[in-house]
């Protein structure tokens, strides 16, 4: 079928809105149509040039915890739990139920940290005008995935994204890689905070030897890729290079008194001895010890292996923290890294099986610009492949993209994000809830399955018919009578199971304004196939918006 020039322009506009962002909001189609898709691409590549509405900035700033330092978060949200636990343990003689009860309220208070992280991410993805920046934030978070359900990452995931990822999404990859390597959230997640040179002065108790976890994933996932030409010997060499990179702990290198192996799980309970202020409640640090860096990063020279290493064919002289920087330089400038990152970017932006010539072209651009992400993106987003109509609508949306794009298309105001992240959780993609360091896939085989279609269409029906409690106040009061509701966890520690999302109207009356189907269709540029269009027309009015959101066209981007 031959498309008219108008249809082909429409499709091109939708393509950039769907790929550089999370699909159109009301008014976007007209705006991009007026400025032209090429200018839109250039504008999105320079997010600093796009003004953010004042009230959005204000609402994001109200999320206090994503702007706190890791140490401040620890002091406010984790330390009280540990103290209450310790006191309850002493008072009850170790009774587990008593200990649990004593910390319950504090643990519920702590949940605000994850909720703010989730809401700050979703608010900007849904309403933010710097859409490519939002896409790249999600992309790099997923590339450097951490699991918020693991111990201290429950309080550090939001700030990890805010400070280690968000400012660096389009800069030099090396800068991003360095910010990640110095963030306590990653060093905790991949266990490097315990990685210690055997026999070093600081080697004791739980800090007694090499831990390969971060070193391996740093090469396999973050940089070179699994076939990137490294060996097990390189994994071990890198682990030695990274010894001592971790979290602040008591001065003197000996750590604290909590060293019974196996006594503390991975839930952060064993941290008391490693933060100096945990052992001396009156002072934040030991007399004479260096002040605690609020970033939460610490290099412990006493646990570092200062010998020379052979890493990927390079001789790295023993030099402490500089060795890690040298290793990151080697990794960031490797051709294998360029190829690995280029493949992932092209797979996200172009097709599940991206054109090889494009991957190789943008990898060249990476190497020629010393790893400048913006340049790589520009080459890709202005390429013939990206503009090729055969790739329009070729990507099946992930649950995150589906949920965010649905809400954007309807333009409904959100006060309560829980139905949105609950739906992502039912669909197998809880935000910040991927346990493994490889992050979530973005391909159709990963997300298209029979059960998922039932859940997506149920969500589309609930949203399209105005049956989600999106405008209810979230947790402070119940919509019915003002009774207090306890805040549920935004990210479950065990990665799923207890989701409580109802897609049907509850007893508390209207919760959102149902979207108008004609306006919804216009927002989406009326891009439906004849069969979808006729199915929508043949349906009762209240089912039209659900059918549009649940249409095969809208499952894809």
């Amino acid at each position, binding site marked *: 079928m031959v498309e008219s020039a108008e249809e082909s322009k429409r499709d091109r506009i939708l393509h950039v809105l769907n790929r550089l962002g999370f699909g159109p909001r009301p008014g976007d189609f007209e705006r991009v149509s007026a400025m032209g898709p090429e200018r839109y691409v250039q504008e999105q590549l320079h997010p600093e040039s796009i003004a953010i509405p004042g009230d959005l900035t204000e609402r994001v700033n109200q999320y206090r915890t994503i702007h706190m330092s890791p140490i401040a978060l620890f002091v406010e949200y984790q330390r009280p739990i540990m103290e209450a636990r310790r006191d309850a343990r002493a008072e009850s003689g170790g009774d587990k139920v008593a200990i649990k009860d004593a910390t319950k309220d504090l643990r519920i208070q702590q949940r605000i940290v994850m909720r703010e992280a989730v809401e700050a991410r979703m608010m900007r993805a849904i309403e933010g005008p710097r859409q490519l920046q939002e896409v790249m934030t999600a992309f790099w978070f997923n590339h450097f995935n951490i699991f918020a359900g693991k111990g201290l990452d429950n309080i550090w995931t939001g700030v990890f994204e805010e400070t280690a990822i968000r400012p660096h999404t389009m800069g030099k990859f090396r800068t991003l890689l360095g910010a990640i390597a110095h963030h306590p959230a990653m060093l905790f997640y991949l266990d490097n905070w315990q990685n210690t040179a055997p026999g070093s002065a600081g080697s004791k108790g739980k800090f007694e030897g090499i831990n390969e976890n971060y070193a391996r994933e740093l090469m396999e996932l973050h940089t070179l890729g699994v076939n990137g030409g490294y060996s097990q010997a390189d994994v071990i060499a890198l682990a030695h290079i990274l010894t001592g990179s971790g979290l602040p702990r008591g001065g003197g290198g000996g750590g604290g008194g909590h060293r019974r192996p196996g006594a503390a799980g991975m839930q952060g309970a064993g941290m008391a001895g490693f933060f100096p202020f945990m052992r001396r409640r009156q002072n934040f640090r030991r007399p004479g010890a260096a002040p605690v860096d609020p970033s939460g990063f610490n290099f412990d020279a006493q646990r570092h292996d200062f010998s020379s290493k052979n890493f990927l064919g390079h001789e790295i002289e023993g030099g402490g923290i500089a060795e890690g920087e040298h290793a990151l330089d080697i990794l960031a400038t490797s051709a294998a890294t360029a190829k690995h990152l280029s493949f992932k970017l092209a797979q996200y932006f172009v097709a599940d099986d991206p054109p090889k010539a494009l991957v190789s072209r943008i990898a060249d651009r990476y190497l020629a610009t010393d790893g400048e992400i913006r340049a790589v993106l520009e080459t890709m987003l202005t390429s013939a492949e990206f503009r090729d109509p055969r790739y329009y609508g070729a990507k099946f949306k992930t649950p995150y993209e589906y949920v965010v794009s649905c809400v954007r298309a309807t333009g409904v105001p959100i006060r309560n994000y829980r139905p949105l992240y609950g739906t992502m959780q*039912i669909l197998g993609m809880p935000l910040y809830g991927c346990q493994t360091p490889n992050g979530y896939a973005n391909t159709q085989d990963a997300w298209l399955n029979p059960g998922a279609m039932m859940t997506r269409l149920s969500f589309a029906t609930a949203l399209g018919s105005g049956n989600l409690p999106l405008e209810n106040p979230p947790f402070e009061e119940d919509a019915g009578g003002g009774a207090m509701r306890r805040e549920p966890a935004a990210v479950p520690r065990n990665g799923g199971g207890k989701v409580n999302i109802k897609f049907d109207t509850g007893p508390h009356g209207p919760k959102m304004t149902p979207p108008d189907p004609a306006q919804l269709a216009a927002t989406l540029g009326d891009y439906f196939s004849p069969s979808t269009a006729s199915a929508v027309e043949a*349906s009762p009015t209240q089912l039209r918006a659900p059918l549009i959101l649940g249409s*095969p066209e809208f499952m894809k981007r």
Partner: protein
Amino acid sequence: MGGAVDGLNVVVPHGEPAYYDARPTIAIGRMGADGGLIDLDGHFGLHPALAPLESQWRDGTLAFVHACGSPDPTRSHFDAQDFMESGTPGIKSTQDGWLNRALAAIPGTHGPTEALSLGPTLPRILSGKAPVANIALGRAAERPMPMDRPVIEAAFDRLYAGNDSISRAYRDGREARMRLMSELTQDMAQANGGAPSPQGFSDDTDRLARLIGRDPTIRVAFMALGGWDTHVSEGAANGQLAGHLKPLGEGLASLAKQLGPSYQDTVILVISDFGRTMHENGNGGTDHGHGNVMWVMGGPVKGGKVYGKWPGLSPGSLYQERDLAITTDFREPIAAVLRSHMQFSDAQIDRVFPGRPRSTGNVDGLIKV
């Protein structure tokens, strides 16, 4: 079991002093000790958190295959798990999973609920030509959805009438949901008053047992359990690994019980991507290793025995001087299940595992003929 479970702490070679030497803080104590292991055969012992499965071992329906795994040398979880699920170690281009190929190898037409996956996404092992149904984990599996209402369903039917992959997924989902929901709701009414078990995994295995009991067309079911990547603070009798093993053992024991008579005709395999280092690391954990133990359970199993050829733990017998070696390819016990339990011919098995290695005889007799 995604993340590589530490098989040496699941089925413990307590007869090997080298085991205790290598694991000063995380070794499982000898039997009789506080938190000690459950002896299996004088050489191997079971992690005490798996006590709920002791009766299956004693009644001869639980077996293990030790020093078992994938011959591919990768220590990447993602590659190793991919190979376990594709059934073609070392070959990345395989599109489908071995369990789906096994289904497809059964002649005749395939109904929508012949394969059931518990969880929101389809695992690699079940991807392929044969249709697969999936249901949510936890209570969400039984909650009504707008899609259950006929008027809504009818409207979406018109949108997804085509033959593209999304339409097919839609129709499979609709048919499977109708069928499974009617089984589950019927059962709920007459069973336990609808009180779900407090344990997440037991809750899911109980639901699975009910479905298998009521719907005889279900042939295979799959569920993934994560959280085994114990690089730090693995623990011994208690701790992280124990905390994960306990609900697994309880869930499997409960599954065996709830299956009732169907247990006599069910084989349950518990598989992990690879094993972990023999030596504990500096942080009370273990790093990525090689050989592991496979669990085989069910009525057709000739259990009460640890199968496989034990390579030993002396430095010379370890794989790359650090990990338990592999003496039985993971495809061999699975092939035994296909042959003796599912009555597959050698030619059918070859379609499931193309290029599989020749049998070592290590698991002869594992499945009753």
